């Protein structure tokens, strides 16, 4: 296997994710962009389970998995450990001190100290680890937190998470005679991160590896916490064909349903524009079994209308359409 893999990589093949898994595909781009001077903290979930089997780790960088919900705090501990070690080695840490909270100057790439990076699922991030992530944001720790968002607890069998969307049929929000699936809105983690003064916040999807790479690189230029959330389709959890990962991930963005953004110090600095002919949300939904019940009842169709409204609102708020006027979108006033 290894010899066949031509390009040098820090994410070795041989892990046992489903074929077509959007998460592991994107994780490879992320880690290869980060490079070898990186320490990864992984949360319990599909990415961790499929890549860390004893004796068969896929990771070419130092990697630690502790629990489902504590990656943010483990990362803080690693950062503190590295800070201490470097202080003792006499290295100057002034530029990377964890105490420069709320200032976050753009410092440019740092060659010496490793990047401390969390790779966690949406369940770990939106739900069970939310408090610890909030703590990390508050402390202003110099950590890149990447959330691989597949809109559910996929590792345990596609249960709903705080990230699951309205109308999604999951194993804990099944559709049925009296149910159109998940009746809750997706938790807005982007707004939360911005509200906490996180200097670099971005989203992307598995369809745009170049965009992901650019954002990872850009994030590393910032001091303090960085939050990047990437939509990564899940084959069995979403009920999609293994060759539809990229198409689904692209439609999520082009419909306006999952806006691809970059927000620097509270200002939206970059958006991925929707095409001239913006696809309807149905285009996105119909490729996925988790939404198929919506097409079969009046209640379901009403949900589709609401989902379309979400897309249209996103286009409006973030100026996603090609002809939308460029204007500064301020998501947060400076504290």
């Amino acid at each position, binding site marked *: 296997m290894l010899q066949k893999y031509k390009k040098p990589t820090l994410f070795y093949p041989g892990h046992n994710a489903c074929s077509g898994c959007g998460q592991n595909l994107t994780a490879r781009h992320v880690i290869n962009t980060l490079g070898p001077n990186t320490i990864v903290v992984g949360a319990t979930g599909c990415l961790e389970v499929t890549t860390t089997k004893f004796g068969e780790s896929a*990771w070419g960088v130092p990697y630690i998995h*502790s629990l489902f919900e*504590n990656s943010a*705090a483990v990362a*803080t501990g*690693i950062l503190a450990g590295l800070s201490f070690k470097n202080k003792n080695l006499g290295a100057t840490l002034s530029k990377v001190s964890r105490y420069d909270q709320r200032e976050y100057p753009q410092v440019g790439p740092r060659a010496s100290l490793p990047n401390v990076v969390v790779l966690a699922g949406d369940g770990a991030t939106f739900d069970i680890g939310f408090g610890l992530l909030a703590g990390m944001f508050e402390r202003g720790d110099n950590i890149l937190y990447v959330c691989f968002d597949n809109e559910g607890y996929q590792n345990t069998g596609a249960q709903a998470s705080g990230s699951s969307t309205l109308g999604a049929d999951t194993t804990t929000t099944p559709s049925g005679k009296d149910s159109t699936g998940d009746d809750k809105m997706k938790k807005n983690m982007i707004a939360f991160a911005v509200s906490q003064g996180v200097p670099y916040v971005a989203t992307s999807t598995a369809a745009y590896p170049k965009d992901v790479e650019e954002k990872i690189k850009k994030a590393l230029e910032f001091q303090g916490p960085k939050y990047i959330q990437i939509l990564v389709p899940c084959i069995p959890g979403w009920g999609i064909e293994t060759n539809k990962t990229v198409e689904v991930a692209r439609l999520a963005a082009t419909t306006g349903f999952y806006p691809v953004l970059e927000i620097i110090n509270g200002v939206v600095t970059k958006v991925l524009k929707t095409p001239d002919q913006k696809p309807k949300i149905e285009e996105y939904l119909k490729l996925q079994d988790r939404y198929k019940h919506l097409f079969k009842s009046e209640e379901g169709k009403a949900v589709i209308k609401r989902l379309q409204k979400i897309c249209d609102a996103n286009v409006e708020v973030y100026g996603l359409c090609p002809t939308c006027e460029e204007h500064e979108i301020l998501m947060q006033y400076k504290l």
Partner: protein
Amino acid sequence: MKKLLEGSQAIAQVVNLCRPGVISAYPITPQTHIVEDLAKIAADGEASFEFVRTESEFAAASVILGASATGVRAYSATTSQGLLLMTEVIYNIAGMNLPVVLTCANRAVSAPINIWNDQQDAYSVRDAGWIMFFANDIQEAVDLHILAFKVAESVGLPVMVNMDGFYLTHTVGEVDIPDQKLVDKFLKKQSRDLGSFLDVKNPKTFGYLATPKEYQDMRMQLDAKIKKAKNQEIKKAMQEFEKVFGRKLSLTREYKLKDAKTVFVSTGSIFGTTREAVDLLRLKGKKVGICNLNLLRPFPDDEIVKKLKGTKKIIVLNRAISLGTEGILTTEIKKALYGKHKIEIQDEIIGLGGRDIRVEELVNLV
């Protein structure tokens, strides 16, 4: 140097002398003074450690886990609800063989909520794979902390030092705080084996997934490691401690045990009260003694068997109970003595949630 100090203050000072790299803790009575004092030491520029404030004990435990995984000395302190909230991380730290040190200022657990002392908190996590010491008095608590870092790092497992909340954390006494030079001599710089910590030059995967094929072997290795530590690393560290600091530390703390026919067995600061009871009983001609345990994990089975030889009866003063059976220490002692000596074992649950333990009460138990 001998100083008049509050127990918590003494612990904060001695922990600083151990030169930890990272400290993270969250306030909870009766541990608060320890964290406050450490934060102040850091604020006054008298520390080299990184002090990380977190939003919960769960996070604090995770922070020291991460810090320890980079190969630096890491420390936390908690009690009661805080320890229970940490539990998932407590198991994780041991499973990952990380040599962190944690103080547990023992306190009762909820419900009903109660901030006073017993030892239900620590006893509840006794199966997690931590080496667990119990201090009989403030000086011993101070000494055990120095020892703890040595033991943790030589064994490659976490160590919990237990000291009774309020009785030891909030009382003032004369304590010998050792010289920095002596502590440095005893502890040396921590040097972890290459490949045993997160290192970009030597990338390794920690916290991997183990299948049914490997898991049990790994857990049994952990069990063997902690058991072996008793006669090897712990005893060795205690001998070295005595050489460097001139004070003796041992697995049990005894009083008038030699000819005793009835022996009190317990853990922690109850030792002081029990000693008074023994003196009174001795005046009445009763051959009574004490054998307190300074170590709960690994359990000192052999020592107990040896020390209690010739005893007719032991009275186990339990500060923690396994609801539905009996005092936890009673079960442990029974296990140690099973098939060894014929001794009557009296199970006593005492002083839960800070209820006063009076000398007469102990006298009446005999």
